[in-house]
């Protein structure tokens, strides 16, 4: 018999002498951090997706190099960005004092792919192959022009830190499908593009004013995958099992004396911790994946901590019912030497992102999993620094950028929204950050105006006081 079963049985037998089984099962549901039921009333309507995998491209990939094909830029090369296009748009302090704003066309070739005829650049050959699975949104826009506020905005719906992250909102609203794993998992990787790229912050997956049990749990590639998961040296599995049993007995004695339900909850938390000690290593151990899986995700997927390895883990997490899986891949902040750096970034991510979508599809999981790929803003069409024959850089651009979505609830094989010939302004169907958030929630069966939490007298929500579901991308 597995020790897990033993302790669970113990738990129920002990508990039945306590406050009553009905109350207890409710307790179990409500107090176990990771096996929680949804809030009353949620889902608000039938969900299309059960979970989300968000592939966050941190640093802001250039839309012009990857997906938003702008052939006319070649003839505008080196010419000054017209005021009629810039329209007084505020620029970051990094380029606002530049004496000129020369247009820099992309150096990379584009072609149309799939039945949908989506334009994808040569940098993304694998993504190009799954173009018919994807919905490209070319009309994303944001209000922030610097990394910290911009990424905070995507994560929390507000530019200033302090509010819960989207994953925390979903854990709070939807609960978890898996009682042995956290409901919100985060994985971080460093790209080969800009090695001195923007930092990330724990608060990006924090719970803000929601209880801390909803915060994302970061899975790490070195050391313990979850902090303090491993027993200390010299403590074997059987020792820990015995320890949990003894602790349970002692806490049960405490409960019998004091009658505080928190004590029973704590007994359950230790059992959950014990189960995680098995379930997490089992999850992160990819050694038993067949060779063709690694071929699919690319050679990097064998190296722990790479984006490709994290994509593979994302699939394994989604198989196990984790609600919100978020990858952050750093290195996209290409102010200088963009042509060189972006090649590395694409090599890091292209194959594995495409493999993940394909893998989910082959396993029948894509229908119920929403995959989102994108960064925190776009990049400028004008050159930052010196424009030469084979080198240029791009500054931050909030007014338009491209993301893609796939899977649960999303219409495949379409392009939504469009930008002008300079790739500077949106010409149709703008999508605000709050709209994207509302749409993600919608796919999960949540009305974004109704997932609220009262704090400081206000009913806060992820989308602040904004957001509308982007109907045009829904299946």
């Amino acid at each position, binding site marked *: 018999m597995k020790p897990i079963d033993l302790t669970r049985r113990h738990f129920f037998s002990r508990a039945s002498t306590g406050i009553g089984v009905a109350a207890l099962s409710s307790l179990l549901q409500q107090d176990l951090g990771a096996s929680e039921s949804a809030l009353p009333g949620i889902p608000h309507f039938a969900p299309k997706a059960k979970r989300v995998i968000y592939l966050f491209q941190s640093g802001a990939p250039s839309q012009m190099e990857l997906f938003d094909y702008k052939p006319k830029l070649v003839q505008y090369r080196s010419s000054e960005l017209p005021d009629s296009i810039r329209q007084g748009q505020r620029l970051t302090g990094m380029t606002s004092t530049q004496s000129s704003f020369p247009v820099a066309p992309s150096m990379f070739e584009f072609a149309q792919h799939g039945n949908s005829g989506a334009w994808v650049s040569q940098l993304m050959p694998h993504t190009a192959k799954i173009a018919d699975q994807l919905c490209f949104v070319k009309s994303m826009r944001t209000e922030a022009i610097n990394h910290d506020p911009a990424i905070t905005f995507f994560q929390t719906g507000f530019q200033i830190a302090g509010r819960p992250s989207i994953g925390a909102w979903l854990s709070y609203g939807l609960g978890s499908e898996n009682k042995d794993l956290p409901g919100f998992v985060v994985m971080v990787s460093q790209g080969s593009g800009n090695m001195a790229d923007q930092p990330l912050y724990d608060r990006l997956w924090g719970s803000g004013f929601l209880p801390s049990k909803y915060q994302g749990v970061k899975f790490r590639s070195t050391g313990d995958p979850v902090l303090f998961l491993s027993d200390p*040296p010299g403590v074997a599995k059987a020792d820990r099992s015995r320890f949990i049993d003894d602790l349970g007995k002692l806490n049960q004695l405490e409960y019998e004396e004091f009658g505080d339900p*928190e004590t029973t909850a704590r007994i359950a938390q230790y059992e959950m911790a014990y189960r995680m000690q098995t379930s997490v290593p089992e999850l992160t151990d990819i050694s038993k994946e067949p060779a063709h899986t690694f071929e699919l995700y690319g050679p990097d997927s064998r190296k722990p901590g790479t984006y490709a390895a994290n994509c593979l883990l994302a699939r394994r997490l989604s198989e196990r019912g984790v609600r919100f899986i978020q990858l952050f891949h750093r290195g996209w902040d290409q102010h200088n030497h963009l042509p060189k750096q972006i090649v590395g970034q694409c090599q890091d991510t292209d194959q594995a992102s495409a493999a993940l979508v394909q893998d989910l599809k082959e396993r029948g999981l894509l229908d119920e999993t929403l995959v989102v790929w994108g960064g925190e803003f776009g990049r400028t069409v004008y050159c930052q620094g010196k424009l030469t024959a084979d080198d240029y850089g791009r500054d931050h651009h909030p007014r338009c950028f491209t993301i893609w979505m796939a899977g649960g609830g999303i219409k495949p094989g379409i392009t939504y929204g469009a930008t002008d010939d300079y790739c500077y302004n949106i010409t149709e169907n703008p999508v605000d950050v709050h709209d994207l958030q509302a749409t993600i929630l919608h796919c999960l069966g949540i009305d974004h105006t109704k997932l609220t939490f009262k704090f400081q007298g206000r009913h806060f929500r992820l989308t602040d006081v904004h957001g509308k579901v982007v109907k045009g991308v829904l299946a």
Partner: protein
Amino acid sequence: MSTRPVSRALFFLTAGLAPILLPAQDTPIQFNRDIRPILSDKCYTCHGPDPGNRKTKLRFDMESVALSDLGGRYAIVPGDPAKSEMIRRITAENKAMRMPPVASGTSLTPQEIDLLRQWVQQGAKWQKHWSFIPPERPALPTVKNAAWTRNEIDRFILERLESENLSPSPEADKERLIRRVTFDLTGLPPTPAEVEAFVTDASPKAYEKVVDRLLASPRYGERMAVRWLDAARYADTNGYQTDAERSMWRWRDWVINAFNRNMRFDEFTIEQIAGDLLPNATLDQKIATGFNRNHRGNGEGGIIPEEYAVEYVVDRVDTTSTVWLGLTMGCARCHDHKYDPISQKEFYQVYAYFNSIPERGKAFKYGNSPPAIMAPTVPQQHQLAEADAKVAAAEQQFAAMKDQLEKTQSAWEKSLKGKPALYWSPERGLLADFALDAENSKLTWEPNGAEFGSDKIHPAAAFDGKRTAVAGDIANFDYFDKFTLAAWILPTAGTGAILTRTEDKPEDMGYGLYLKDGKLQFNLIDRWLDDGARVETEQALTLNQWHHVAAVYDGTRVAEGIRIYVDGVSQKFKVHLDDVNQTFATKFPFRIGGGSGPENRFHGRIADARIYQVAITAEEVVMLSDPLSLNELVAQPPANRTPAQKHKLQLAYLSLAAPKPIQQARERLAQAKDERVKLTATFPTTMVMQELPAPREAFRLIRGAYDRPGEKVTRRLPAVLPPLPAGASNDRLGLAKWIVDPTNPLTARVAVNRFWQMYFGTGIVKTSEDFGSQGEWPSHAKLLDWLATEFIRTGWDVKALQKTIVMSATYRQSSRITPELLQRDPDNRLLARGPRLRMSAEMVRDQALAVSGLLVEKLGGPSVKPYQPAGLWKELSGGLEYVQDTGDGLYRRSLYTYWKRASPPPSMMTFDSAGREICSVRETRTNTPLQALTLMNDVTYVEASRTLAQRMMTEGGTTPEDRIGFAYRAVTARVPSRAQKQVLLDSFRYNLDRYQTDRKAAGSLLHEGESPINPKLDKSELAAYTTVASLILNLDATVTIE
């Protein structure tokens, strides 16, 4: 929200009210308690204070409007629900007519509708919002069981219990009581000896003696400070992007000391908000103002400074109003407050008290941003006084030689006449000096060799627009370094590098003094366009003429700290960029006449190039730029000599020819001064508030946006609150005095409520951050007012307030929960039992350190870096790495743990620490598997288990039973029951067997942590006890204050 399965609780939860706060059936409806919360939550969004959202004239936050004639109809007809449109609409069958509208997403519960109807029936009586009415000292309630009460608090608590037909719980047993009060007042457990003393002390004053001892302990200030640091969003890093270090620990220590000295709460308040504006403000009073500089600061490249300048001020208003007034003023940033009577304009009127400090929206990426002051600690202040005394003594000794000096100098001056020309220049801080009059082994000439010409000043080196002299790896200054560059130049073309240390291409990283179109440019560059300083003199030099040029930088990272001199005269300059944010140190060599690319080679001649590692004074520059030789100087009659010339002669004499005793006296003086400089360089700095001479303008910002100013506003307090006290100035100091004026209805209530929350887990007003109309009605309104008025009456005596609370019978009750009580009052708001709460994050760790004997107690000082899993910082930023301390730094109390906002200490966060990004005043407690993993496996706890086990074996007697009893008592203050002991003994035996069989495993377990292993102890046995100690440290009873 706790989630106990109690049906009655669920019923009321849906009504939006805590169950116990509802009136009994027969009590009359009270507007503030029963009605306002419903109107506020469900109606004010459209019928409230904010006109932006109001769809009609009708509003329910003003009685006059709510009762007014709406064209023949009345929303509310007092006493007549049937004629009241409001009641008709909230009960309308027709969905289109129903209020609140379906589309609003809110609806009224049947209970709420019933309450509203009853209220109208009973006459629809209005009340001003309770927290805006000044507290009046309530009469003490009469209670039946007066014998139970110990002080006034108990009367109020008991009155409510008796009305609910509940009885208080008996007093907690002495072990639990002393453990509870010791944690609550000091954040640490009692020692077994302290427990023993209390248990055996039969005197009626036994408990009070303990309380007095704890209040007098320096640990008290540390405990009180922690929650204040959460409220003040105190941290060791700047918070945005790179999230580099700042230094605010002097402020943190000020808070600890203030609590320990029992500083009156009104002074505590005034000094933190406006200590800088007090007459003759002391260093401590200035340090105190760091409260409003603890907010995060953004130094990310490319930000728009104005945007963040607004954020900082908004943060100050938010934090100050939350902490002292319990008001969510921040809600009025973008529009009028939706629930409370605070208009958007009023928000910006309060904003205007906080925006007049000489700060910049773009903070320094590294370190403290201005305004900051040097903040020596008390021992350092003593050292400074000593250093000052040494300088004074040396000055005196030197001055005593004045006559001798003048006499011998005069003789020396005479001796110079007719001798070969002798030159001298200031030597203080001279790092390198290139005469450039001949070949010099320290210089390499590129591309091919040097050329020298003779000239009236020097036989200076010639530069032809190609040649440059490379001085190698010297003068690699960085942005905190003071330095000076100086040279004689004879330019023949308008553009060229004079002295530089940069890569040899244009606009690249490094520093340098250049000639550009005839003007002098001085650049300190990380990134040319946005990270560095670039200044340029207004006036061009005359070409083909010798000039002395100097650039001085004082290491302050601002253009204000730069001086440029031409021929000894300070020049006006234009600031092209003033944003020194990151290092400009480079690996490239120091050059003369070149650097920054071939297009920037110097044309003409350069002589006497000098690098000083100090910021030389204006007078020293004048001396440098004086072309006269000493012989020529002395040839002038003394009356014609300028002061600088006189001084130069003296310095030259002292350096070249003065008799030994004089030279020695002068050297001693220089040394004393140098030591003082070195000493002050070790002093910490701290950010403070300062006031600009004239207030900065403030505007109402439309939608709260920095770039959309509306009308101008001036400093003014919200109309709903009392005006400034008579005689108070209309500035931050006046505001601070207003906050603690006894007529302010909020401050004392908000403060006592937060202290109450520290002991009972929940405030009397549960929403301790919000006393506005969306806040919760107090569970014991009269008690809150009694405590508030008592706090003011006792002169804001913080320790006295704590003592009153912990001396009460209410506080001393047992926290045992009966099933009946759990049903009736799951959240313990009525306090028919004592608090039983999981400890705060700091207490969990500090307890483990204390009971294991690892704790290093030391009050204050820079933050420390205890154990943390490797790589946590690096994997997020790729930059800074956490460098764990060794020794004492591993074992200090948790409030000293280095707080990096982007990556806070994980064990602290797991146990619900506030993130310190923004103000946090409410405590939360969760119960998660990650907490279990931390307590079982974090090296902190594994090591503490081992050292506790060592104590068990060396201090805990000889038998396993005794040793287990020892540890159990050390941790929980109690003696284990027979059943508990049995489980622990069984565990010990299992583990002893296990580790005797596998001694290697024992060794591995024991090697966790840095503290030494007691070599005299048997390893297997120690490992077994380590596991038992770990069991005890993991107990529910251990991490709970019972």
